[in-house]
């Protein structure tokens, strides 16, 4: 499937399937470089910590990654997938389950060329926290068709979906985010935020879905497809910044904000592991 960069404790391979199993109350920081289709199964024990980075640079035309992350009670896990390279088609399937009082962050930096179909589904136990943070910036004529769903399985669970996208001409992105809060998930809190900057010629479809059945849960969403407003652009031009540089600055700001958010999920694990 690929190879590990540096140490790879608590890991084993079976063909193209990698298994990472962190024992209770242990910690690990693992980076893996993926060249071929395969899967990664992650199990984080009770009170354990894992920061796991996957750099996917496939050497094949048809690529396929499956990630399954299971975080035990009071465990913490941040998984960051950086998708690069130019396979014609990539399928990405991610499943995440956060046990009671655990924290799970699923982070994506999607810089692919070609077509990507990605699906992430997660489940949050009681008092668990799940965040899904995605930066979509395809290159060339990249297309991204992605969906994220979070389901609250326990009370006082917290979830957030954050998406940012920068699309230049001939790029297309469709995103569907779904939050499901059943009746039993009392005091659940969920949010979904998305901001896409699309240049002329690019297209974006962003659909937020909230399914809330618990009467004291709170769920919110905001999705925006935008470029700089005329007022913002004029302001920057009045400072001597050309229109092209102003747009690049705004895109850079969006990307930086999401990268910082992703970095925060990793640093919180490192801090708690000290």
């Amino acid at each position, binding site marked *: 499937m690929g190879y590990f960069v540096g140490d790879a404790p608590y890991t084993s391979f079976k063909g193209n399937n990698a298994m990472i199993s962190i024992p209770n109350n242990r910690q690990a920081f693992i980076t893996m470089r993926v060249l071929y289709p395969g899967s990664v199964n992650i199990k984080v024990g009770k009170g354990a910590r894992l920061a796991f980075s996957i750099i996917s640079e496939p050497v094949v035309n048809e690529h396929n990654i499956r990630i399954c992350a299971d975080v035990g009670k009071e465990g913490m896990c941040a998984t960051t997938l950086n998708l690069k390279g130019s396979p014609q088609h990539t399928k990405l399937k991610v499943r995440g389950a956060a046990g009671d009082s655990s924290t799970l962050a699923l982070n994506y930096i999607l810089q692919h060329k070609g077509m990507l179909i990605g699906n992430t589904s997660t489940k949050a136990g009681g008092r668990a926290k799940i965040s899904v943070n995605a930066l979509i910036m395809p290159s060339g004529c990249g297309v991204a068709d992605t969906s994220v769903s979070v389901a609250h399985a326990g009370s006082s669970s917290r979830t957030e979906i954050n998406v940012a996208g920068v699309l230049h001409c001939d790029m297309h992105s469709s995103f569907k985010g779904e939050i499901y809060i059943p009746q039993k998930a009392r005091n659940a809190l969920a949010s979904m935020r998305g901001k896409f900057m699309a240049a002329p010629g690019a297209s974006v479809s962003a659909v937020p879905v909230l399914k809330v059945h618990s009467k004291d849960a709170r769920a919110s969403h905001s999705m925006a497809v935008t470029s700089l407003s005329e007022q913002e652009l004029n302001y920057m031009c009045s400072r001597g910044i050309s*229109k092209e540089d102003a747009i690049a600055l705004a895109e850079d700001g969006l990307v930086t904000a999401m990268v910082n958010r992703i970095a925060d999920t990793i640093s919180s694990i490192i801090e708690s592991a000290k």
Partner: protein
Amino acid sequence: MARKNTRAGHSSALEISSLRASVEGKEIIRGISMRVCPGEIHIVMGPNGSGKSTLACSLIGMPNYKTSGKILLCGEEISGKAMHERSRAGLFIAFQNPPEIESIRNSNLIRQAVLAHGSKESASEFKEKLEGTLGKVGLGSSFYGRPVNYGFSGGEKKKNELAQLLMLKPKFAVLDEVDSGLDIDSVKKAAHIIRECAGSGMGIILITHSPQILKFITPTRVYLLLDGKIAKEGGKELIVQLERSGFAELGEQPIRKRT
């Protein structure tokens, strides 16, 4: 009324000749001529709707303002130039209502602006300079990394405009109500900054309708703008007359109702 120009021709001046400006087909500025030399402070006053902000926006070249007439900056005609070109030529505007730009950090915007003006400072030199400038205008160091004007109070936005003025060091600055929303101490600070800038050779057009800041500034020239035209001009004594009589009476003509 044509003002006799007793000074020798200055190719280093900002010269506005017969400027007219309309927005969405409505003429707002109806023939304004001014000459601002380096180091001078010209005050433009007038009631709401008289065209003061339109004058500012026309000078910087805002796209939806249709203008005619001439604007010469140090002998170079800038009337046909794009906004960013006018800025790089040495013209700055402090907006009355600066916009909030959530996606861009204050430091990044100002850094990009100074680079566009040809600065060769390193990133660390810039950081030190900007932090010092923010402190000088009365903003804390946290404003360095905050999104541009996002969540700033009205007064903080005005201070941020002054910080950008100090960082860009233009030849001429048009300050549109830069004193509004400021407490008395901040007004004094703003006036001090304006005097300092003029002292270093910057020509300034200060648009205001508050007499407070004018207690701390000695203007070169004062203009009363009424209905898009300069109705009266003079020295500091004009401010005293305005305070006594009000705009309309001093303009010696009834205010035309806009349709």
